């Protein structure tokens, strides 16, 4: 179950690469398998979701950093307060 879940994460990163490449590559580096352009998957998906036994997966930092109150102040000063 965990393996299927992790493989789904990896598959999602491959599918999303064209739209959010930097974030996708962070995830793929975590799996340690991808270099350069990740190939679009083809064929039955069973192998995608059941492979990778025994591969060590590091714990990734949050992919999208939380905006801190200090940054909120900086952004508001730069771009203006939000209109209600």
């Amino acid at each position: 179950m965990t393996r299927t879940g992790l493989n789904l994460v990896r598959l999602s990163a491959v599918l999303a690469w064209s739209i959010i490449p930097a974030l996708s590559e962070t995830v793929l580096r975590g799996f340690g398998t991808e270099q350069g352009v990740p190939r679009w998957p083809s064929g039955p998906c069973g192998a995608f979701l059941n492979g990778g036994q025994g591969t060590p997966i590091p714990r990734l930092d949050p992919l999208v950093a939380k905006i801190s109150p200090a940054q909120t102040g900086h952004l508001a000063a730069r771009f203006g307060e939000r209109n209600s």
Partner: protein
Amino acid sequence: MTKILITSALPYVNGVKHLGNLAGSLLPADVHARFRRQTGDEVLFICGTDEHGTPAELGAIQAGQDVRDFRDQQHAVQADIYRRFGLSFDHFGRSSSPQNHALTQHFYHRLLAAGLIDEREIRQVWSPADRRFLADRYVLGTCPHCGFEQARGDQCDGCDALLDAPDLIHPRSAPIRCARAS
């Protein structure tokens, strides 16, 4: 393996583009180029700055620079921005490059040889104040369709009609700063 050539509308060399240019033109082309590479197609993704026309000339005058220096600097600024946004151009060139001149002239001569180029007389707007012919968007006047007094020579923002500058009533030169937005 399919060969795919992808480009997007060439951003004008003047100034940093607004976000809509990135979101509406460059980004969709980039996503498409990346997806095609993922599926194994042979992709060539080409873009570059459009460096010809009145805005570059007037932009250089406003910046107090030689036109060539102005274009060199503005091209470098835009190329750096797109690199930092992660756009995956195989080549980000310039319409002022010798390669583009040669290619454009090649197409022109082929069309001319085929009898597809037609010589016509058209009306141009001459500004005595600026001592130059003005492109449509540098002329303001009253719209002949709706009477809007701030119509531009290419389009009326009052009624959205497409216009020719000579059709404007009471035409006058647009302040250059207003006409630079692109």
